[in-house]
């Protein structure tokens, strides 16, 4: 460790070459921005697709269909699903999206029967508007806060997308990532209004089971029930369903992981380069410090501290910028009616700062070690 009395010395050494320092900080900040953004994407994918073992929701979809436009199931399947052992509740849902492919700004309408809203809205927190406003109008919508923020909507506005116009009765926050990018409307309203709607036709059923341990068994039982029907089903746990629907997105985000690590390698290279150049410039100065009685270990720690200062400053700028973009941008990646929120929290910010500091230490280690072991008289003779 270093005493605080050395801080002015460290700060002055880091800033002695302002242009070099600024360029290094710019590079580090840019690379950390990229790293944190990639981490936020990965966090979103994990939240949306990785099962925790406590899931109780199944999604029943039309077999061999992958887009909400193509999955058309009879609403009357509801009662048959309800009769299957282990099922707690069934919600038929009609889904209308502006774009079935992968995109950044997809609006998803979910039509849910009015009688099921008590179940669906159980986990909602109203940020504006209210359930009363929703119940008063047939064209009312409850929209997730990410969608509201992206489209700059508030209670009382009208949301128009995919040929559907709905009155915003409330903006909600939900612990489920999927709800954050969705507009919930009445099922009948959506069936009558949407292109490719149709009375009695829904896109999927969301099925709650009593026991998470029986999730797979209930899914198999549902598919068995409709195996010989004209509209056979494919039932999966909700997160597995999202993982399948957003398969392309998950693969792309998985690839970006390598970009993130590459960005970290860039940070290491930039800070190392700055420290190596700085130490090479100061061979005589370090020899003078040693002559004054500075031990090699102290000089090494001073050099490592310079690396940490560069890494943390650049990392903080980049991480904060990425965090701000993710936090205020409310981005989500959507595909086939499912969405993956780009998530950023304080943990991510802490990760950015910790990694920046760690990279600073690693970057400074070798030049620090070399400087600390150099013989004083030889250093004076060499320059």
């Amino acid at each position: 460790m270093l005493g605080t009395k050395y801080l002015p010395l460290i700060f002055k050494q880091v800033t002695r070459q302002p242009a070099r320092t600024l360029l290094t900080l710019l590079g580090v900040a840019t690379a950390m921005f990229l790293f944190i953004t990639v981490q936020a994407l990965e966090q979103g994918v994990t939240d949306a697709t990785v099962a925790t073992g406590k899931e109780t929701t199944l999604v029943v979809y039309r077999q061999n269909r992958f887009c909400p436009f193509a999955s058309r199931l009879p609403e009357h399947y509801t009662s048959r699903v309800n009769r299957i052992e282990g099922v707690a509740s069934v919600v038929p849902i009609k889904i209308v999206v502006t774009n079935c492919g992968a995109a950044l700004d997809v609006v998803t309408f979910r039509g849910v029967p009015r009688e099921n809203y008590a179940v669906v809205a159980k986990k909602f927190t109203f940020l504006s508007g209210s359930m009363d406003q929703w119940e008063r109008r047939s064209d009312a919508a409850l929209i997730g806060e990410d969608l509201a923020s992206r489209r700059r909507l508030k209670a009382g506005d009208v949301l128009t997308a995919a040929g559907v116009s709905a009155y915003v009765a409330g903006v909600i926050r939900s612990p489920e990532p999927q709800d954050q990018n969705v507009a919930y409307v009445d099922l009948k309203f959506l069936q009558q209004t949407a292109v490719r709607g149709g009375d009695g036709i829904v896109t999927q059923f969301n099925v709650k089971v009593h026991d998470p341990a029986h999730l797979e068994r209930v899914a198999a039982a549902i598919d068995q029930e409709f195996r010989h029907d004209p509209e056979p089903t494919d039932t999966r746990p909700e997160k597995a369903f999202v993982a399948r629907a957003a398969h392309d997105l998950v693969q792309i985000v998985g690839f970006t992981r390598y970009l993130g690590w590459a960005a970290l390698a860039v940070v290491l290279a930039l800070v190392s380069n700055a420290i190596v150049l700085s130490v090479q410039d100061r061979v005589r100065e370090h020899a003078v410090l040693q002559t004054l009685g500075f031990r090699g270990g102290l000089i090494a720690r001073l050099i490592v501290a310079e690396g940490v200062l560069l890494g943390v400053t650049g990392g903080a700028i980049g991480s904060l910028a990425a965090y701000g973009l993710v936090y205020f941008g409310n981005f989500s990646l959507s595909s086939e009616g499912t969405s993956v929120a780009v998530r950023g929290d304080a943990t991510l910010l802490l990760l950015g700062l910790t990694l920046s500091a760690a990279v600073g230490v690693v970057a400074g280690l070798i030049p620090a070690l070399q400087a600390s072991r150099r013989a004083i008289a030889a250093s004076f003779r060499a320059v």
Partner: protein
Amino acid sequence: MALIQCRALTRRYTRGDNIITPLDGLDLDVESGDFLALMGPSGSGKTTLLNLIAGIDRPSAGSLHIGGVDVGTLSRGKLADWRSESVGYIFQLYNLVPVLTAYENVELPLLLHRLSRAQRHEKVATALALVGIADRSEHYPRQLSGGQEQRVAIARAIVTDPGILVADEPTGDLDAVAAASIMDLLKQLNGELGKTIIMVTHDPRSAGHAQRTLHLEKGRLIEATAAAVH
């Protein structure tokens, strides 16, 4: 026993296939309070002897005792601590840290000691006043003349109150007026504060300020001259 006692002191370097011996079996005693000038042609071993006495180089053979301490056998860390306590080094080219003010440069050696900020301030102020540069304490080295820079360097060398000052051509980069003034200052430090000074110089006028002058050639002492105290 003399403050500095060199016996058969030898330093060898290997450069490529050649073995160079800048100091070859030197015997020397320096008493406490001496002001010694070392003269000789380039490569005669003056600076090598100075570096050994300052503890920034190690003998290849022979012994070097300073204040009763066998300096040649100290570990790197102990030697650094010993330098910090016992020796002040004055360089020909001052070697101030360019990004630090005169005050901060003089404060550097004190950072190694257990002193409060106020105690460090008091010692730095005293040292700067002693060398007559107190009014330049917030100036950076680039804002000072050569003579002023050397005064700051001397303040840095004496701020920890070491018993020994070593000076490697302290006036070598200065004009005659500044050189005379620096020599007066060194003489004052020797006479009034009792510092033992060992100075390498090519300039006979500077050497004339010392109590005695030793001449080296090819790593050996060839003659000693006792000078009248000026």
